[in-house]
């Protein structure tokens, strides 16, 4: 691609998502902050919590694909070539990672458990 103007990107996503764009960005920022805050509090990763979060993340990736199919009016047999598999992997990956971070952070702050307890 020749140029990728971030302002155009932003304009298109604003048009696509409306106010939800800002809501999603804020939620994402809060989730990441909560995750990082947890790392600081626990002085590292809590393995059991991470594994649980990752398992939920695997499910989250599937949910992301279902949402993708709905918003793009697609079925589940539409993949045609490598570019499609790339997009499917990307959507799954984003959903999985986002779910992992969110659930890890939620579990960590809600349980009050630290690495030492």
């Amino acid at each position, binding site marked *: *691609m*020749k*140029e*990728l*103007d971030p*302002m*155009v*990107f932003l*304009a*298109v*996503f*604003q*048009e*696509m998502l409306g106010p939800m764009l800002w809501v999603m960005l804020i939620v994402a920022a809060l989730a990441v902050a909560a995750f990082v805050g947890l790392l600081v509090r626990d002085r590292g990763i809590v393995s059991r919590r991470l594994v649980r979060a990752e398992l939920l993340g695997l499910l989250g990736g599937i949910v992301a694909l279902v949402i*993708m199919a709905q*918003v*793009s*009016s*697609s*079925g589940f*047999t*539409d*993949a*045609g*070539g490598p*570019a*499609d598999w*790339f*997009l499917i992997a990307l959507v799954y990956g984003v959903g999985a990672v986002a779910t992992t971070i969110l659930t890890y952070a939620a579990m960590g702050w809600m349980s009050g458990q630290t690495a030492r307890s």
Partner: protein
Amino acid sequence: MKTPAQHLRDALQASPTPDRRRFLAGLGALPLLGAAASAPLPASAAVKTQARIVIAGGGAAGLTAASRLSTLLEGASITIVDARKEHYYQPGFTLVAAGIKPQNYVVSGTGDYVPKGVEWVADKVAEIDPEGRKVVTAGGKSLPYDFLIVATGLELNYGGIQGMDTARIGQNGLGSIYHSPQAASATWQAMSGFADKGGVALFGRPAGEMKCAGAPLKYTFITDDHLRRRNNRSKAELIYMAQSKSLFGVPIVAEKVRMLFQDRGVKVNHEHVLQSIDLDKRVATYKTPTGTAEQGYDFINVVPPMRAPEVVRNSPLPWTEGPFAADGWVEVDRETLRHKRYPNVFAVGDIAGVPKGKTAASVKWQVPVAVAHLMGDISGQAATEVYNGYTSCPLITRLGQAMLIEFDYKDNLIMSFPGVIAPLEELWISWVMKTMALKPTYISMLRGRA
């Protein structure tokens, strides 16, 4: 001694702005899709001017031009003339007719996009007088201009098909997507009914220029897919009536479509142009090189002949000779969109008498170029931007897949995502772009933000 151009420039400028910056109107082979940058507006100071700019037509091209000009100019009087309060997202008509999107997906309001500071005269353009440098509305209002942008779009000439009655679209197997959102929705109902029962379905396109030459092909593929999904494909015969010896203006694409039609079992008759239709008996009559050919149908998607609106045809603006003369397309330079005989007149969008696509993607790339040249006249620094004929067509080949086809005046394929999206490949990602990213990009374009 000042030249006329210098006189004009001095008259238009309230005061010269010292830090005038050149603005980009990037070319690049970038599509009307998601993350592409065409001609982002610069963050420089607006050019001060007293120029009066009239934009005849407030559709995709007219609104985009107004948005860009209102940002680039300060003090100019910019007027859009368009009687219609509704704005139609025409690239979505096929999705409505395919049963993928609801009718309201394609309808919004012209008023949603008219920029602040731009006057909208909600009346029809009745007369364009480039000699007298004015536009006159149906209500008799005279709008003098220093610059005119003709963005009227085109006229669907249903009268060119004997026996056709647009009031009956949706009834008795008659479909016609282009007519209106209501007609697109009614066409879906008719096609869906056909997909349940089977029979003979006819598709085709007019001779002459038309908007989105891919749409008639897309609908053939979509109908085929609906039949297959209902296990009724064997009950139907699909016939595509090609108006010429070829299925598409770009040879490499025509070959691909030929192979796909073969794969789908779509029969093709070349050099068949619809000339009349019997809506009661369901018989379509085609003009062929060897006489007329009749074909009975159970469903037909009528794509009417298209031409310039009467107000343009009645003006001195159209080509007087050549392939664009008969239908009244405006005589502009294909690279700058500037009128060849009236230098202060530009034509953009479907009305422009240039080869290749009349599509939203063409508008996206034409308008910044035309605006650049208009700005060049005002600022005195001639613009160098050039429109290369870029057109984009996400050609749906089944529900959930499309081929991203992009080309220029030279029939060269342009790849916006080289290495990721192959041009003639049926891909889900292209369908996703069509269903998710195209409309937001289009709306951003109307607002001058893309």
